[in-house]
């Protein structure tokens, strides 16, 4: 670890850098705003990614992890590819998502629930399951939108685009062993 980052030991900045491959570029942020300017969800964000970086620098950990920025991110990678300082902003957003979920700091968003439902299906079957996702997540979280979804779902179904049963991979135990090992290692 470079000495100038080592000096920031114990700060939130260091934590984010450590948790993000390529994260050390964070210290080069010019606060130019090309990330915030490029973001398709920029208008809906409480804090733009640029602001989040400033907040990370200011060690404002609580506010960052409670921000809605991460949940508005659509992973379009415009911020990353346009950043004049080569900062992997999308990946930093992923890091913040993980921290926020792990510590349950998120507010007013169902994204973590969706992620959870989704990954549970992967863990259980090895494949994602759209119908299950729709019923499992939407029924629980947003029954009204589920109703609006109805006609669309039906159309999807009649066109053979939605299955009622999940596909399970053959060697699911193998996948689960891999996942369990990953969870065990990352818990450390």
């Amino acid at each position, binding site marked *: 670890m470079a000495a100038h980052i080592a000096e920031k030991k114990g700060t939130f900045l260091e934590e984010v850098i450590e948790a993000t*491959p390529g994260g050390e570029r964070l210290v080069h942020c010019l606060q130019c705003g090309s990330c915030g300017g490029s973001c398709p969800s920029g208008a809906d964000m409480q804090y733009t990614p640029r602001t989040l970086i400033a907040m990370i620098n200011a060690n404002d950990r609580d506010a960052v992890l409670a921000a809605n920025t991460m949940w508005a991110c659509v992973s379009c990678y415009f911020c990353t590819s346009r950043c004049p300082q080569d900062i992997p902003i999308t990946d930093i957003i992923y890091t913040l998502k993980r921290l926020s979920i792990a510590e349950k700091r998120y507010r007013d968003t169902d994204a973590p629930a969706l992620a959870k439902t*989704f990954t549970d299906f*992967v863990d259980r079957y090895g494949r994602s399951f759209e119908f299950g996702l729709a019923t499992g997540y939407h029924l629980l979280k947003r029954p009204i939108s589920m109703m609006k979804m109805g006609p669309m779902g039906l159309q999807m179904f009649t*066109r053979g*685009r*939605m299955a009622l049963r999940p596909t399970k*991979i053959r060697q699911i135990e193998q*996948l689960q062993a891999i996942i369990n090992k990953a969870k065990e290692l990352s818990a450390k």
Partner: protein
Amino acid sequence: MKYAYYPGCSLERNAAAYDHSVREVSDLLGIKLQEIDDWNCCGATEYFSQNELAACAVIARNLALVEPQTDQIVAPCAACYLNLAKTDKLMVDHPEFGKEVNQCLAAGGLKYEPGRVTVRHMLDVIVDDIGETAVRDKVVRPLAGLRVAPYYGCQVVRPIDNNDNPEYPMKMDHLLNWLGAEVVDYPVKAHCCGGHLTQISEPQAFELIRRLLQNAQDYNADMIICMCPMCQLNLDGYQSRVNGFFGTEFKLPIMYFTQMLGIAFGIDPQKLGFGKELVTAMPVLEAKLGGLLV
């Protein structure tokens, strides 16, 4: 040319049209696709939001399952493509992390040597490996007169370098040109379709979808041609909801580029999954291409 084939979960059902057309077109172009046996889900963006190591381990299982004699893997789905490519790159660039991923794989008796497999998108394979001459040679029903708006979305062109401009990609433009179509040069061709936001925040997602449909319509496109099941689902599946939400009257069919290739190559539309789209493409195709489709 032989490639390992990773269809991804969407192509099993929701984007079956994509899967069918990929296979049909590949057959015709001499692209040998060997489906990875017992592949698993790439985790989409969701797994990365939860646990990076687990996400990469889940993805790396697929890389590890690629047969040793094959060193290229093709994914038609943008998210699958990015996840596979990103995992490989992370493992190459950060050997320590790569070791951890392999520790996880070892728990399932697998091993993946970072960098062994090159991850490719279907579009890149057709444009870069097959090339203009071979594609043009196969065209029997030129798409002349059809105004198509190539839509690239995000995750194939960014952030992994696939030899196209991440801001203003051109590969699909070229490909559709080879098919004789009139290609619409419109500014949002690599903007976001809303991704998983349709599941989380509809108003936000609908606005993103509207921008794309609006722009394509402003440029008088007959249809939008996409290369990702998520983009297709959002633009096609949600089109009527978007119309309801904004009071608009978009009626733009959203087709996969492989379906258009198939049409131009004279493959039976049925085999290409035509009819699975919610905004039906047949009327405009018939109007523009005439009896060719019959």
